[in-house]
C-alpha cells in the first residue's frame, strides 16, 4: 500500500516537473495587425474605426475630450458668436481666453491625437488596398473613402494649428505634419502650408476618381461619398482662394440630385435626424448609445437635462440674425434661440440647434458637410471675384429656404451691401452656421479681427458682467487682431516633447 502511494507521489512530482503551460495569449477583443490583413472585412472595419474615433472617447482621457466636442468648441468658442457665461476650470476656458492658451491644454492635445489616429488608420487601410492588383469597385470606393477621411481630418487640423492660407506666403509658413503611410511614425517636421494644402487637394482629386462608382456603402449619408469629396474640395479651394475651382466644385455638388437644400419646415427638424435629409452630404452618425450626455456638443450651449448650459448666443450674432425685426418671426433659424437664463448677474441665451435627436437634449449627429454650405462657399467665391449678382443669388437661395413667411421681403438686394459683398455673404454664413463650427474659420480666412464687445468671462471682468454698458473695444479680451499669434492653436506639448523636430507656433 505504502509503495503504491510512493509511486503515486513520484508520478505527481514528475508530472508537475514536466508539464508546461501554453503562454501564447492574445487579447480577445482585438485583432493583431496580421490578423487584420487576413480578415475579409479588415479594411472596412478600419475605416469604420475612423468614424468611431470621431465619436468615441480617446484613451487615457476624460470623457469630455472626444473629437466632435473639441472640434465644435475649439472653433465656435474662439469666435464672436458665443458668450462665456460661467467661469470654469474646464479647459474650454482657454478657448475663450486667447491670452491664457498654452501647449499643455488637453483639449488641444486630444483633438490633435485623435486626428492623427484617424490618419494612421486611413494609411493602414490604403497600404492594404494598394497591394491589390485588380481592385473591385467596392475596393476602389474604400480607397477613395480612406483618402477622403484623411483629407478631411488634415484640413481640420491645418485650420486650427496653422495660419490661414495665403497664396503668397503659404510656401514659407508651417502647415502640419504629413504622415504618408502606415509605417511613417518616426519624428518628423511640419510640411509647409502649401505642401499641406496640395497634399489634401491631391488626396481628394484621387478620391473623386476612385469613388465615382456605384457602391452601396457610399449611398449612406453617414459615410463618405463622391459628393462629400467634391463638397470638401469646394471648401478647401475656398480656403486656398482658388475661387474658380471652388465655384466649379460647389456647382458639381449643387447639381447632384442626391442633395437638396432644406425648406423652412424641414430645416426646423433637420438637426434631429441629419442622416435622413438630402440637406446632408456627410454626417457623423451618433446612436443613442453614443450619447455623450454632459460631454456632448450641445451640453455647454443648451439649457436642458444633462446640459451645463453655461454658454449662449452673443449680442452681435443676434444682431446679425435681425433681433427686434420681423425676422424673429419669419426666419426659421430663430427657432433655436431659447429663453433667457440669468445666473449670478449674467444673461445667457441658450441654443437648441444641436439637440433633440431621439428626443434627447444631448444627442446629435453632426453634419460635417451639408448642401447649404455649397451655396455659401460659391457665394463667397463670387463675392471675392466681385460678381455681386451671382453672390447675391446664392445667398438669397439660402434665405429663401429659411423663411417661413415674407420670404421675398427678406431677400437681399444690392442696396443691402453696406460695406462689402463679402461681408454680406459672411453675415449669412454666420447666421446659417451659428454653433456649427464655421464662424471662427470664416473670420480667420478673410483676415477679419475677432471683436467680442459683450460681457462674459472672456473679458477680464471677473464677475462676468459689469453694470456699465458694453465693454469698450479697447478693454482686455474684446478686440483680437486677426494676426494675433494666440488665434493659432499651439502644437500640443505632447507632440513637441516627443518629436523635437516639430516646430511650435509662434507666441507659445
Amino acid at each position, binding site marked *: 500500500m505504502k*509503495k503504491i502511494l*510512493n509511486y503515486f*507521489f513520484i508520478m*505527481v*512530482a514528475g508530472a508537475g*516537473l514536466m*508539464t508546461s*503551460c501554453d*503562454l*501564447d*495569449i492574445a*487579447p480577445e*477583443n*482585438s*485583432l493583431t495587425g496580421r490578423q487584420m490583413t487576413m480578415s475579409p472585412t*479588415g479594411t*472596412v*472595419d*478600419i475605416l*469604420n*474605426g475612423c468614424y*468611431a474615433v470621431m*465619436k468615441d472617447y480617446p484613451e*487615457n*482621457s*476624460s470623457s469630455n475630450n472626444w473629437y466632435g466636442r473639441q472640434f465644435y468648441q475649439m472653433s465656435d468658442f474662439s469666435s464672436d458668436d458665443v458668450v462665456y457665461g*460661467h*467661469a470654469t476650470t474646464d*479647459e474650454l*476656458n*482657454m478657448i475663450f481666453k486667447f*491670452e*491664457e492658451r*498654452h501647449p*499643455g*491644454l488637453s483639449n488641444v492635445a486630444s483633438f*490633435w491625437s485623435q486626428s492623427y*489616429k484617424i490618419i*494612421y*488608420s486611413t*494609411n493602414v487601410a490604403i497600404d492594404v488596398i494598394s497591394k491589390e492588383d485588380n481592385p473591385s469597385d467596392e475596393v476602389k470606393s474604400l480607397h477613395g473613402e480612406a483618402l477622403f477621411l484623411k483629407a478631411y481630418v488634415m484640413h481640420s487640423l491645418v485650420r486650427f494649428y496653422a495660419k490661414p492660407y495665403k497664396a503668397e506666403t503659404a510656401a514659407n509658413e508651417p502647415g502640419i505634419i504629413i*504622415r504618408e503611410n502606415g509605417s511613417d*511614425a518616426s*519624428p518628423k517636421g511640419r510640411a509647409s502650408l502649401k505642401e499641406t494644402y496640395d497634399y489634401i487637394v491631391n488626396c481628394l482629386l484621387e478620391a473623386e476618381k476612385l469613388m465615382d462608382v456605384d457602391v452601396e456603402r457610399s449611398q449612406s449619408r453617414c459615410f463618405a461619398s463622391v459628393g462629400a469629396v467634391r463638397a470638401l474640395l469646394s471648401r478647401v479651394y475656398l480656403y486656398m482662394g482658388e475661387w474658380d475651382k471652388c465655384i466649379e466644385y460647389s456647382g458639381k455638388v449643387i447639381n447632384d440630385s442626391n442633395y437638396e437644400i432644406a425648406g423652412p419646415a424641414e430645416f426646423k427638424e433637420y438637426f434631429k435626424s441629419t442622416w435622413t435629409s438630402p440637406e446632408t452630404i456627410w454626417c457623423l*452618425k451618433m446612436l*443613442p448609445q453614443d450619447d455623450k450626455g454632459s460631454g456632448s456638443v450641445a451640453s455647454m450651449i443648451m439649457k436642458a*437635462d444633462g446640459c451645463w448650459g453655461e454658454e449662449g448666443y452673443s449680442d452681435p450674432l443676434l444682431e446679425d440674425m435681425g433681433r427686434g425685426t420681423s425676422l424673429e418671426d419669419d426666419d426659421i433659424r430663430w427657432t433655436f434661440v431659447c429663453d433667457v437664463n440669468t445666473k*449670478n*448677474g449674467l444673461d445667457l441665451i441658450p441654443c437648441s440647434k444641436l439637440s433633440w435627436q431621439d428626443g434627447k437634449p*444631448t444627442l446629435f449627429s453632426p453634419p460635417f458637410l451639408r448642401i447649404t454650405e455649397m451655396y455659401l462657399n460659391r457665394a463667397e467665391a463670387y463675392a471675392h471675384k466681385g460678381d455681386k449678382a451671382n453672390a447675391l443669388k446664392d445667398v438669397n437661395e439660402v434665405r429663401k429656404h429659411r423663411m417661413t413667411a415674407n420670404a421675398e421681403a427678406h431677400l437681399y438686394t444690392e442696396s443691402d451691401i453696406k460695406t462689402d459683398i463679402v461681408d454680406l455673404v459672411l453675415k449669412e454664413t454666420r447666421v446659417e452656421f451659428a454653433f456649427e463650427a464655421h464662424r471662427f474659420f470664416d473670420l480667420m480666412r478673410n483676415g477679419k479681427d475677432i471683436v467680442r464687445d459683450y460681457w462674459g468671462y472672456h473679458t*477680464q*471682468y*471677473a*464677475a462676468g*458682467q459689469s453694470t456699465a454698458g458694453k465693454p469698450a473695444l479697447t478693454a482686455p479680451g474684446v478686440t483680437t487682431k486677426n494676426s494675433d499669434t494666440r488665434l493659432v492653436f*499651439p502644437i500640443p*506639448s505632447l*507632440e513637441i*516633447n*516627443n518629436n523635437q523636430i516639430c516646430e511650435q507656433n509662434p507666441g507659445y
Partner: protein
Amino acid sequence: MKKVLLFGLLMLSSLVAFAQVEVKGLVKAGDDGQPMVGASVFEKGTLNGVITDIDGNYSITVKDANSILVFSSVGFRTTEVPVGARNIVNITLDVDSQLIDEVVVMGYSSKTRGEITSAVTTVSSEKLKDVVSNNIGDMLQGKVAGVTVIKSSGRPGSEPSIRIRGTSSMHASQEPLYVVDGIIGGSYDPDDVESVTVLKDAGATGMYGAQANGGVIVVTTKKAKTSKKLQFNFKANFGNVTPDFSRQRLMNTRQLYTYYREYFRDPETHLIDDLAFKKALPASILNNDTDWRSLITQNAVLHNYHFSVMGKNEWYSGYLSFSYYDEEGTIRNTGYKQFNVRSNNTFNLTKWLTLTANLDVSGNMSDNTDDNLVYYIGENIPFDSPYDENGNYRSFKNSKLYGRYDVNPMVGFESGKDVRNSKGFGTDLDFVVTAKITPWLSFVSQSRGSVGFWHSHNHRFKEVEYMKAGDEIGDSMSYSYGGISTNMFKADKTFGEHSISGLVGYEAQMTWGNDLTGSGEGLPFGLSVLDVASSNKDAAGNRERSGMQSIISQVNYNYAQRYFLTGSLRYDESSTFAPNHRGAIFPSLSAAWAINNEKFFNSNVITNLKLKASIGKTGMKDIGASKYLEAFAYTTQYDSNSAAVPIQMANPDLKWEETTQINVGTEIGIYDRISLDLNYYCNTTNDLLVYRDLAPSGGFAKQWQNIGSVRNSGFEAAVSVTPVKTKDLKWDVDFSISYNTNKLFNFGEGVEIKQSNYRSLTQIYRDNVPIYTWYLREYAGVDPQTGREQFVAEDGSLTYDYASARFVEAGTPIIPWQGGVSTMVAWKNFTLSANGSFVWGNTIYGRSRASRLATFVSNSLMPSNEDKIWRKPGDDATIGLPAYALASVYHTGDLVKGNYFKLRNVTLSYTLPKKITKDTGLTLSLSCDNLFTATTVWGADPEVSLSADSGVAGMIESIDNRYPNKRQYILQVNFTF
C-alpha cells in the same frame, strides 16, 4: 526512471531500520505545565518518530542507548535529549521566547530567526491587531522599517497601497506579492493571521523572481498549538467612526459672501463694483447658511466579530474560524460588510506523510454612493439651501441658484433612490502533501485552486436630480478561476558541523477571467433589474487569460550555526512578453555571520551579533497581458457596424524590468532588553517598463517600452527597547526610521521624457533626478503692484503670461524620510499602547488650491491662515486679484511639502486576573485609531496615491473626488475558553 529507482532505494533503506530500545515518557508544556498533545518525538537522524497522545504520553523504539531524541512543537523550543540507559524520558518543553529561535516563514521554506541571511521583518498578530480593520495593510502602517503604507481614502473596505523600499518602477505595479500559507496569492481574514513576514531584499525575495520587485509579504494563518482540549476564542469589536477631513475647512455663508465680493474688484481702479455685486449676489443670501458637507456625513458604527476553535491530537490538527466585519461609512448610504470562514486541517496520515487541506471562503458587500452626487455636494455653496420653505427637498432644475450645478443632490441620498453596491465572493482551497522520502529528503506538492465572483449593481430612479435626467441601471459581473501548483523536492542534511538544506521544483500558474456588463434606461415604478429597463439596453463582455511557469531552486548551508549561506535560482516565463523575451533567470545569494556564536566572542552584554549581506535579482512583469502585440480593438461600432480602432503599437522587444538588489545589515541584541536591526540597501532596476508618451502624430499617444534605470538606496534602522521589565511592570518601545534616495539613470544624454496626466500636470524623467520629479512652470507669487499672478520667463524675468513661463524641476512626491514609533506599557493586568508614523520631505501637488482661486462661485474651500487676498497696490498677497485668476494652470505655486505625523492608534486594555477567570481568559480594551494628525498640508489628507496610473503620482485630489479619512473609537472584548 532513474529517479524512481533512486527513490525506491531510499525508501527501502528507511524501512530496514530495526529497533532495540523502547523509550516512554511524558511531554509537558513549559508555560502552564499541562501535558502536550501532538508534540513530535523523533530519533535524531532517522525517519523514526511518533507524536504524543492526548495525555502527553509517547512511546518510541530507538536503535540503541546512543540515540538522541528530538522533541519539538510549534511555539516551543526544540530540545534534544540523549537516551542513555534510561527507558523513561520525561521532559518539559520551554516556551520559545527567544527571538533567535523563532520560526520565520519565508514562503517556500521556513527558517529560524538565527539562520536568516537577508532583510526580513516579522510582525506578530499581537502587534498587528491594535488597529481594527478588514485588511492587513492598515495594520502594518508604521510598523516595519522601509515599508510605506499609504491610505488615501477612508471608504469602508478600501485597501491601502504598500511600497517596500521606495519606488522602483514608473508604471508597472509595485504592490508587494502576497504569499498565504506558502502559496502565492490567496485570501484570508486578518483575524486568522498568526504572523506576517515582510521580505525586503533579494536574499529572501529572489525565490519569487519575476513577481518580487515590490517585495513579498508572507502571511501565515493560525494553526492549533499543542493543546489537550479544544480552545475557543471569541472576539468582538464595537466602534464609532467619524470623518476626518484633516485641515480642509469650508467657509460659511458670511465668510464666502465676503470672499466673493473680491470678484467684483475692478482691475483698473481696484474698487469694488458694489452695484454689480449686490445685483448678482443680494444681501438676502446671508439668510441662508447650508453646511453641505454635514448633510451627507454621519457618525458611523463599526462592529466586528471573530470566533475560532482549534485543537490537535496525534493525527489531526484543526483550526476553524468565522468572522464578520461590518462598517458603516462616514458618508451616508455607504458601508462595507465582510464575512470569512476558514478551516485549516492537517492530517498526519503516516509517520512520513502529511496532508494539509485549508479552505477559505469569503464574501463581501459594499454600498457606495454615486460619486457624482458627492461631487455636487462638494461644489455646492452655503448660499443655496436644499430645502424649500416647507422643509422638503426642492428641485434645483428651475429655481434660482448661486451654485454652479442645477442639481439638488440630496434627493439621491434618500435611501433606495440611487443605489450602488457590489458583492464579492471568493473561495480558496489549498492542498499540500508532504512526503518524507528519507530522513533528509522530502517531496512537497502544494496547490491552490481559487474561484472568485464579483457583481456590481447600480440604479437611479428618475426622482433623483442629476445632470442627466431619467433613470439608469447597470449591472456588471465577473468571475475568475485559476490555480497554482508547486511541486518540489526538499532536502535537509547535517554532516557534523555542516548543515545543508535546499529545494528544487516546478511551479505553474494560470488565471482565467470573464466579465459581462449590461445597462439600460427607463425603469417602471419600484423595479430595478435589467429585465425591466425599457430603453437603451446595452451589453459588453470580455474574456482574459494569463499564465506563468517557473523552475525554482534554493540551497542553504550553515557551518556550526556561525556561517550561513543561501543561494537561490529561479527561472520564469510569462505570457506578458513575446516568445523570444518570455523567459528570465533570477539568481540570488546571501550570507550571514553569527559572531555571537563564535568561541572567541564571549560577552554577557551583547547576546546577539550578526552580520549579513545579500545580492540578487528580481523582476516585475505586471503590466497586463500581451502588451507587446499590435492591436486593433473591436470594442466600438459606427452606425451599428463593426469598427476597429488601432489601440496598441507593436513592441516585440518588450521585456522584463529587472532589479538587482544589494543589502548589508547587522542585528545586535543587548541583554534581552535592546535589539537593533540595521540595514543598508541599494536596488537598481534596469529596463524600466514605461507606458511612454509618444508623439501622437504617429497615430499612438502611448506605448509600453523599456527605458532607463532607477536606483533606490537607503538605510533602515529598527530599535526595540525594553527599559523596564519587572514582575508587574513592563515597558516596550519600538522605533523605526528609514531613508531612501531615488535616482534615475541610463536614459541617455539629453533624453528627457515628460509624462503628463490627462491635463498637463507633468513629471520629468531623465538622468540624475528622482522618479516622479515635478516639471512645472515656475510661479513667482502675486505682483504687489497689480495683484496679478506672476511667473518666471525663460530669461529669468517676471511675466504674467503663463504660456511663456519657464519649466522647472521642483521636487518629487517620493518619500525620503519615514518611520514609526510604538510603545507599550503593561502594569499588572493593564496594558497601554500607542503607535504613530511619520513622513518627511516629499513634495505633493495640491489641486484644491488651484481650483478654488479660478472658479467663480463654485466651491467654498477655506483659504489657509497664511493666505492673504490682494486688494490694493503694495499688498503682499498670496491670492491675486480674481479678475486675473488663471484656470487650469499647473505651476510650482501649488506644490506643498507632504510632511505629516499621524498618531495611528492608542489602546488601553485590561485582562481579568487568572484567579477570577480560571481556565479562561477575558480581555477588554478601548482604542482609538487615527487620533491625531500634524501636517504641513493645508487641505485634504496628506496621504496621496503613489502610483502613476493616471499619468502622474502624488496629487491631492480635490475635495469632491475623495472619500474622507476616518477616526474610530473601538471597544474590544476578547474571550478565550
